[in-house]
């Protein structure tokens, strides 16, 4: 137990004493990034709010370094834990520097006057989030991305052992998302600050978190390293995905495939087919894909987008049976698209297949 910096034990959280989620058990080591993922309204925020003490715990315990959360005073907690909340703050006549400086609150005296040392720490925190140049600007006059960085600088300024962030990447464009996560990663690895946050972007969670907590309904559905958690079935169950698919390998989301008898047969390899699959999907035309080796990049996309798919084992000669299936598919479809296929010694029969399509007058070079 001592190895964890923060640990929950049979934690139950909710509002007004009613548990929304119960039996929450997870542990975070010092300097780790732990991310809560789950659908909207699944209770990610509720868990975070309970740990930051905005909500009373309904049951169970939260331990910081073996000390129970309920035994820590607000004042003591403030020097250990800083937060970045989803709620947008409304300020009047406060510069970004003023906002960041409020992070020094637990360390300043009765009237909150900053010492030179405090000022230095404020400057450092601003530098850590690359926000020095906006220090003098009014907080209301900066962009959402900058605001989020300022709130993070404020949290860093509090010199906490753990930073809790509730959906810090909402409102941010992809550039700022990456930048924010990069800053958090540096904080965690260089300064040993523990990071606990909730994220909407599961692909980012997969890439930046040391551990993932999947929150769904009344309990924690899964908990572990991204490698342990990120399976297609887990994610699809977590988000009740019946209208599309998530590919843990590429981190890409695809819309639901168009079912039905294929109208178009796309022949491709090495990723050439994927843009055409997507286009056909957008047009709502059912299509077939082939002949794909199951280790081909196109296979990953075709699997979730094509209504029919003709495959072959990697690096094997194309078998008679597979070839026959492909020929039948050409007969059945109105159009055959050659999106570009690399032909080598293993798949030399593709040449014959393309020729067959040509003879039938169905072959098109370009669909896009």
């Amino acid at each position, binding site marked *: 137990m001592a190895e964890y910096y923060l640990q929950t034990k049979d934690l139950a959280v909710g509002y007004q004493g009613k548990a929304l989620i119960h039996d929450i058990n997870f542990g975070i080591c010092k300097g780790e990034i732990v991310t809560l993922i789950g659908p909207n309204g699944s209770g990610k925020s509720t868990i975070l709010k309970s740990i*930051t*003490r*905005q909500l009373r715990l309904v049951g169970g315990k939260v331990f910081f370094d073996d000390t129970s959360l309920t035994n820590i*005073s*607000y*004042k*003591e*907690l*403030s*020097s250990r*834990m*800083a*937060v970045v*909340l989803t*709620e947008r*703050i*409304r*300020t*009047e*006549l*406060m510069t970004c*520097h*003023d*906002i960041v400086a*409020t*992070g020094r*609150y*637990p360390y*300043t005296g*009765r*009237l*909150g*006057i900053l010492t030179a040392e405090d*000022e230095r720490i404020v*400057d450092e925190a601003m*530098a850590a989030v690359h926000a*020095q*140049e906006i*220090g*003098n600007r009014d907080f*209301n006059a900066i962009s959402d991305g900058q605001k989020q960085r300022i709130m993070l600088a404020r949290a860093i300024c*509090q010199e906490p052992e753990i930073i809790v962030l509730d959906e810090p990447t909402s409102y941010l464009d992809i550039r700022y998302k990456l930048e924010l996560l990069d800053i958090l990663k540096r904080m965690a690895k260089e300064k040993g600050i523990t990071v606990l946050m909730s994220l909407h972007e599961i692909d980012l969670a997969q890439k930046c978190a040391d551990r993932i907590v999947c929150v769904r309904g009344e309990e924690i559905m899964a908990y572990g390293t991204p490698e342990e958690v990120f399976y297609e079935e887990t994610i699809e169950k977590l988000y009740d995905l019946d209208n599309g698919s998530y590919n843990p390998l590429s981190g890409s989301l695809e819309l639901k495939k168009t079912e039905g008898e294929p109208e178009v047969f796309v022949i491709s390899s090495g990723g050439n087919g994927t843009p055409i699959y997507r286009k056909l999907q957008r047009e709502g035309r059912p299509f077939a894909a082939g002949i794909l080796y199951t280790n081909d990049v196109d296979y990953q996309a075709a699997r979730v987008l094509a209504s029919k798919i003709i495959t072959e084992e990697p690096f094997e000669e194309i078998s008679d049976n597979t070839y026959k299936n492909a020929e039948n598919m050409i007969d059945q479809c109105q159009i055959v698209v050659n999106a570009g296929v690399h032909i080598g010694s293993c798949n030399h029969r593709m040449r014959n297949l393309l020729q067959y399509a040509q003879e039938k007058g169905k072959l098109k070079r370009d669909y896009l």
Partner: protein
Amino acid sequence: MQKEQKQTESVSFHSENFKRRSRYTVVFLGLLAAFFVIIVLNINTGNVHISVPKILRILFMRDGDAVEYSIIWKIRLPRILMAAILGGALSLSGFLLQTFFSNPIAGPFVLGISSGAKMVVALAMIIFLKHIGHFSSGVLVLAAFIGSLLSTGFILLMSRKIQHMASLLVGGIMIGYICSAITDFVVTFADDSDIVNLHGWSLGSFSGSSWSNIRVAAVIVAVAAVWTFLLSKPIGAYQLGEHYAQSMGVNIQLFRILIILLSSILSACVTAFAGPISFVGIAVPFLTRKAFGTSKPIVIIPGTFFAGAVFCMSCDLIARMALAPVELNISTVTSIVGAPIVIYMMVKREKGR
């Protein structure tokens, strides 16, 4: 190169800091100057004109013409001091309520704290005049206090159930309406002579301030104001919202009760001694923030107190002099000066969005 840039950055921070401090100093000095000019103007003007050298002589040497001496010491000086103390208290109370509700239009008048006082004063006045036959100023002060705290109590009770600040603000306004309705109801069944008294009081005035009243008001206001100043650090944290404040170690429950109690004590004190005075609580903190260019409580708390004092003294001067020898009620003047400021401020806010 980067280091160089960093250095200029930190230099610009320091120069910015210096600029800000200079601005605070200039504004404070300006307020101080205005404070003294208005004191002199106030004492100096009136039906009996007294020249400045004579004033100084009477004030500091306690020597001079007996009539002028008593005009200054018994009428004008207590009145101007009362205006200063209560003006400061009123705008400080407004500032606290605006912080509490994180809404710039919150104020003791808007929230029904003044209406609560008026209601209890009306009830007390009618009961006392009917059964006892007289109505002393001590009872009036007490009634106003009870009324103010009653309204505050209701707001605090509501705040346990209503978490959303805007709804709570509306709740406060509703309390104001209920109190006004009850007052009107009571007044309908009261004798005309009683109503004259109530009407005079309810428009507010600093006239007739006695030294003993000033002593009581000064002590209450001083304690509340110093206490508020000592709370400037948590108030600053609270400006980021209660959740952030809590994460910085502020005990929110206690802090909120403290803030609303302090503000209602301040406004109760004003209502008790001068009647309900409108608009000062909204307009002055707003103007102060704009003048200082910051909302840091450590600057704004003393600043708004000072500015409130100057504002009320000026309004009192206008009340006395505008249509002399007829004296206007203080609320008439504060409304005429204050209301346009509130309108301006709302228009400006919309523009800023």
